[in-house]
Each structure stands twice: as structure tokens, then as C-alpha cells.
């Protein structure tokens, strides 16, 4: 009786591993899920947005439609974590320069100061290709609402270095603007994981019908 119970439990555990097998190569979809009236699962998606990049080009959700993109929040005169984030974002920029399916979006949390001209200067100093990495500015409330949708913190705080607090996360999104992962943008080894996960998403997107 006892043996049967143990065997039963082992089988159950094995079955659990089996069912997970397919998902180990798949990234989870993060955020609150809802169920529609027809019974379909509705995943959390980033809403439409209207922002300007360093070239003064209007950047909307159309630019990332069907593409994998990485998003983050920063400001140009940030004396704390931003330079490290920019260094790592530059790694992604160089790595995926030829891959049209990957786009990078960096949102300033200080749009009053970080105008198009300031972002242009910043991007040029880093040698950024504008079609790969868009540094975005626009309406302050719109940017802060977007940060909430990306599920990261962004706020003005006179006590913080530089006057703003914001997350150091890189957020990975798929072609349907669904969040697929968070990575510490200040740590090279975490960004290694992000590089792998982008490859994974690229593969699954290319093999999808």
C-alpha cells in the first residue's frame, strides 16, 4: 500500500515535469491575465503610445508592431544607475544591429529637461543607430502611465540622486506588446540572459505560422 503511494507520487512528479517540458524553451507571459466572454485568455498588453525620438520622429506602437522590443526608463543627467544601463543597452544595440525584428525603446523620466535635442546629443555621443534604438520623450504623464503599464517604477523625487527614481529593469516584450521578462539592466550577466531570451523569442516567432 505504502509502496503504491510512493510510486503514485513519483509518477505525478514525473507527469508534472513532462507537462513543463515544452515550456522550458518558452518564456512566460507576465502580468494580470483576464478571461474574455468567449473564454479566451487576455494577456496584459502595453497600450498605444505617442512619443518623439532623438530624430524628432513620431514613435507609436506601430514601430514595434510584430517586433520584439526591449524597453527601459532613464534620464540623461542621471548620476546613478543610468550609465551602466546605457552601457548594457549599447551591447544589445550592437548585438542586434542587423536583426530587423529587434527594437530598443528608452523612455526619459525627465521629459522637461530631456528634449529631442538633448536626447539627440546623448544618442550621438553613444553612436546610436536611430532605427534600432529610440530614445523617447513626450508628455510627462503619458510616460509615467506607460511605466506603470510596463509594471516598473518611475517618479520624481527631490531626495533621489538627480531628482528622479526609476527602475533599472530592462523589459522584454513580444510582437503583441506582451511582457515576457524583466532583467537587471545594470548587471552584464543578467543582460546575457536577456540576449538568450531574445534569441528564444526570435526562434519561436520565426517558427510560428
Amino acid at each position, binding site marked *: 500500500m505504502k509502496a503504491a503511494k510512493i510510486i503514485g507520487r513519483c509518477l505525478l512528479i514525473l507527469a508534472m515535469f513532462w507537462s513543463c517540458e515544452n515550456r522550458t524553451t518558452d518564456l512566460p507571459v507576465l502580468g494580470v491575465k483576464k478571461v474574455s466572454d468567449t473564454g479566451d485568455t487576455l494577456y496584459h498588453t502595453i497600450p498605444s503610445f505617442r512619443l518623439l525620438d532623438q530624430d524628432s520622429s513620431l514613435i507609436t506602437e506601430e514601430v514595434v508592431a510584430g517586433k520584439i522590443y526591449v524597453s527601459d526608463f532613464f534620464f540623461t*543627467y542621471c*548620476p*546613478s*544607475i543610468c*550609465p*551602466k544601463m*546605457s*552601457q548594457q543597452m*549599447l551591447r544589445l544595440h550592437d548585438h542586434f544591429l542587423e536583426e530587423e525584428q529587434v527594437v530598443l525603446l528608452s523612455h526619459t523620466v525627465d521629459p522637461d*529637461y530631456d528634449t529631442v535635442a538633448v536626447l539627440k546629443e*546623448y544618442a*550621438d*555621443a*553613444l*553612436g546610436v543607430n536611430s532605427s534600432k534604438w529610440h530614445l523617447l520623450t513626450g508628455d510627462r504623464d503619458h510616460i509615467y502611465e506607460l511605466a506603470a503599464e510596463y509594471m516598473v517604477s518611475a517618479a520624481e523625487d527631490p531626495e533621489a*540622486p538627480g*531628482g528622479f527614481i526609476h527602475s533599472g529593469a530592462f523589459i522584454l516584450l513580444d510582437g503583441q506588446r506582451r511582457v515576457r521578462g524583466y532583467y537587471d539592466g545594470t548587471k552584464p550577466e543578467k543582460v546575457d540572459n536577456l540576449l538568450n531570451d531574445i534569441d528564444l523569442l526570435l526562434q519561436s516567432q520565426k517558427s510560428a505560422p
Partner: protein
Amino acid sequence: MTTQGGRNKVLLYLWPILLIAGLLLLRFLTGQETSAGAKIYARHCANCHMEEGEGLGKLIPPLANSLYIQSHGEEMACMIREGIPVLSTTRRDRQLMPAKPELSAVELASLISYLKQNWGNNGQAVTARQVESALLDCESNHRQNR
């Protein structure tokens, strides 16, 4: 018998001291000890100038293999302490390089010595006394730095 016992007792008390001395020697020989300058650099500078002083593109100047670091000495203390203001007439609250008024002359000397003696900058260390006198004359140092 008693002398042998006494010797054993001495050894019993002595071995922790020998162990610590051995470990200190090992640390000294392998150069594992992190200098004060390295700690100050990691805390105050590495976020922007990066771990190995490599800088970031044309945005943040490198400190490794730097002609500037090699050709400047204790007078850099003024720039580090006061920061570099932004060239904007509207936003005086912004700084290109943040000020570090909390750093003492001793800390600044450790930091400058660290910068001058690492990453291909084959320079001389500076003393706290040199930094102190440089800090008394920051106005003319700023002219020199430019």
C-alpha cells in the same frame, strides 16, 4: 615533562596568531588587499566611469590610459569635489559630473593616487598634504584644468 607541557601550551596559544600572520602575508603577496582608493572609486565614480575606467562612448570620458590623468595631479581634487557644471543657462541644478563635497583630502589623495597608478596610467601617487594645498587654491586650479 613539565617543560614539554609548557611548550605545548605555548603552541596552543600561539597557533591562532601564526595563522593570522600567515593569512596577512598571503594577502600581501597576492595583492588581494583592496586599496582605499579602489573602494572610493567603486563607491563614487564607477557608476559612470565604469569598473575599469573605460568610460562610456563619447558621453563619459575614460580614465584608463588617459593622458589627462597622467598629466594632472592633486589639482584634480577641485574638480572631483566641486563637480562639473552643465553648460545650460536654464537648468543650473544639473551637473555634467556630480560634486562630491563629502570627500576629505585624505580620501581624494587615495582616489587620485589610485587613478594615476592603474589602468595604464603610470603616474606618481599624491599626498593628502598636496591635495590640501591644492584645495585652498581651487579658483586658479579650475583655470589650469581647462
